[in-house]
């Protein structure tokens, strides 16, 4: 068991997907929210700044009206041209007070500074949150102050005190000071004109906007995570189905199959492939079990003979001849079992691929001729004639094993032949492979038996005839296929059978 560390859940694909997906979603939402917020903030401030600019410009122009009327003002700095067109011209009586102090008067430190009505309208001095202004002389001496200006506004020396004369006032970048937004203009003579406003309300609004964006973002994030989790689960479920079925199969239940509703997706195809693999496994296992059971089966009969013979012989006193008979019976049975066991072992080894085939060049036709010679006594006994005339058949393989195959085919051809029948051995050399055929004029194999002749333990009649266990052809097939070749059969019931072996000429 692996240690269940607190981070073991990271091994789950689902969790990893979720975490990455969550991170990406957070990044996207945060980026988007932040940008939206910044845009809004910029817009708000720009609006305020525009207002401030206008007002500061208006103030500057009242200070130096003649300076400010002229084409020298750099384009775009409209505030110096007086109140912007959008502002409705203030209505009201003409100024009650006298003219504004002239620049000289200002220079002399006069505290008298009155805004003409149009400009005064820009500053609602009764509104503590409204626009305010403060004007200082170059030396910091306060020239004028609106009544609603916060006490905290103070003079700061302009950064570039020496302004070339003749140019319009120099605006400084707008500053945010606490909850106030202020714009400063430096007039050519050096006065500092400051216009400001409380932006507490704007800041509040922005704050609320930020909160709104955050909560909406969080909501979307949660929805997104939930949705992602659901999607991941759906995607992962087939894998879990597969895993579940595989576990059951590993536990021994080979009849399990993966049941997924999807058939076209990648996982659906994987499941289909696995299912067909499981089906092949099941078949292979069933065949294996059948084989083992058939093998045990075959051994029972000779064993039965031995047991019965021995028990009978030992039942009472017997003559030497009787004992000899019994022992000979036992011996026959034992030999039969030995042959059977050899065949079974050979098949098992061929199955497991543990039987290495030699790879030598030899002439298959010569092997065939040798086999025919060896089998001729049997043929004579059964009055069967053998004709053997294959051409040179060069191939690569294990000549001993293939001789075994040829002998098996010849034995069958003789055993299932008619009296005075014939057996023909012939062959053909093609490109890449050689063919060897063994045909007989025997009883043939019926259509229903034909596909099964190479099956293990299959015999045309369901009985044991003269100790033939039905493995000869199965072994032959295994040997031929281990060489990369093929064995096939065709038959005409009543007239004869032809077995054909095809072997490759190269390894």
């Amino acid at each position: 068991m692996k240690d269940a560390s607190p981070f073991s859940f990271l091994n789950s694909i689902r969790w990893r997907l979720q975490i990455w997906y969550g991170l990406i979603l957070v990044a996207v939402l945060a980026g988007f929210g932040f940008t939206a917020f910044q845009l809004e903030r910029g817009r708000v401030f720009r609006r305020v700044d525009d207002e401030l600019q206008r007002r500061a410009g208006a103030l500057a122009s009242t200070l130096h009206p003649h300076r400010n009327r002229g084409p020298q003002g750099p384009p775009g700095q409209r505030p110096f041209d007086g109140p912007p067109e959008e502002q409705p011209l203030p209505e009201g009586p003409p100024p009650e007070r006298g003219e504004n102090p002239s620049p000289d008067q200002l220079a002399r430190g006069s505290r008298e500074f009155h805004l003409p009505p149009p400009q005064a309208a820009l500053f609602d001095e009764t509104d503590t949150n409204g626009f305010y202004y403060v004007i200082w002389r170059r030396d910091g001496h306060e020239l004028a102050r609106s009544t609603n200006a916060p006490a905290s506004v103070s003079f700061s020396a302009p950064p570039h005190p020496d302004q070339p004369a003749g140019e319009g006032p120099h605006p400084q970048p707008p500053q945010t000071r606490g909850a106030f937004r202020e714009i400063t203009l430096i007039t050519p003579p050096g006065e500092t004109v400051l216009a400001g406003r409380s932006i507490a309300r704007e800041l509040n609004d922005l704050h609320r906007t930020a909160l709104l964006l955050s909560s909406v973002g969080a909501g979307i994030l949660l929805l997104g995570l939930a949705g992602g989790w659901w999607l991941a689960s759906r995607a992962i479920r087939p894998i879990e189905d597969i895993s579940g079925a595989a576990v059951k199969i590993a536990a021994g239940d080979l009849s399990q199959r993966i049941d997924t509703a999807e058939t076209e997706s990648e996982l659906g195809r994987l499941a289909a492939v696995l299912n067909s693999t499981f089906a092949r496994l099941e078949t292979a296992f069933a065949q294996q079990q059948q084989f083992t059971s058939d093998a045990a089966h075959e051994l029972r009969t000779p064993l039965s003979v031995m047991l019965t013979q021995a028990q009978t012989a030992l039942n009472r006193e017997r003559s030497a001849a009787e004992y000899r008979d019994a022992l000979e019976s036992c011996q026959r049975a034992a030999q039969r079992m030995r042959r059977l066991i050899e065949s079974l072992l050979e098949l098992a080894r061929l199955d497991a691929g543990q039987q290495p085939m030699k790879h030598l060049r030899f002439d298959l036709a010569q092997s065939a001729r040798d086999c025919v010679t060896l089998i001729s006594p049997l043929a004579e006994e059964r009055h069967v004639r053998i004709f053997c005339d294959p051409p040179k058949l060069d191939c690569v393989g294990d000549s001993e094993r293939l001789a075994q195959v040829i002998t098996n085919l010849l034995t069958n051809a003789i055993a299932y032949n008619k009296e005075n029948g014939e057996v023909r051995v012939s062959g053909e050399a093609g490109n890449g492979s050689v063919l060897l055929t063994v045909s007989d004029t025997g009883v043939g194999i019926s259509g229903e038996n034909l596909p099964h002749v190479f099956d293990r333990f299959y015999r045309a009649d369901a009985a044991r005839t003269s100790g033939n266990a039905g493995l000869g052809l199965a072994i032959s097939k295994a040997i031929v296929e281990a060489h990369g070749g093929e064995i096939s059969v065709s038959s005409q019931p009543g007239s004869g059978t032809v077995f054909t072996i095809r072997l490759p000429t190269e390894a």
Partner: protein
Amino acid sequence: MRILVVEDEADLLRSIAQALREEGYAVDTAANGEDGLFNAESNDYDAIVLDVMMPKMDGWEMLARLRKTKKTPVLMLTARDQSRDRVRGLDTGADDYVVKPFDLPELFARLRALIRRSAGQTRNVIEIGEVSIDVAARQVARAGESVSLTAREYALLEYLALHRGELVTRTALYEHLFDENDSTMSNLLDVHVSNLRKKLGAEFVSTRRGHGYCIE
């Protein structure tokens, strides 16, 4: 008792037949289902030992056909040991099912049980008057003392005792005590009967003239 053994494995067939004969049974043999069926229908056997896997006609088929006409007890002998094979065998009409390789004493005991059952007997010991017959041990005692009988005498006694109360014809006795290899000589039967009377009592076996014998 006469038994038919149907088995295609020559060595095994010979072996079983010999063992049964030595047990005192009359034994006929057949090497395939066809011959076996012919024999079984032509004669009245006390039991049939039947192999399943045989050429020409397998044991299933032979049994199925036999059961149309005969109720002979059948013991199936086979290498197929799966439950479904046993079920099939018993359902087709076999009375017992023995798997190869089998223990010979067990085969004998099962055959005895079959024969006993078909004669309506439940115990292995038959008591008639002061005579007691232990069928399993093949021993006879009269008034407590052991009586020695030849194999034929015993076979005759056993048959009559198992069919106690019935009239057994001479023909039936010939059928059930001698196999096809024996030459039928009618005196033999009379000799055995008279020997039995000598050893077990004159009234033990009654004769119905012209019909047959009976143990009351």
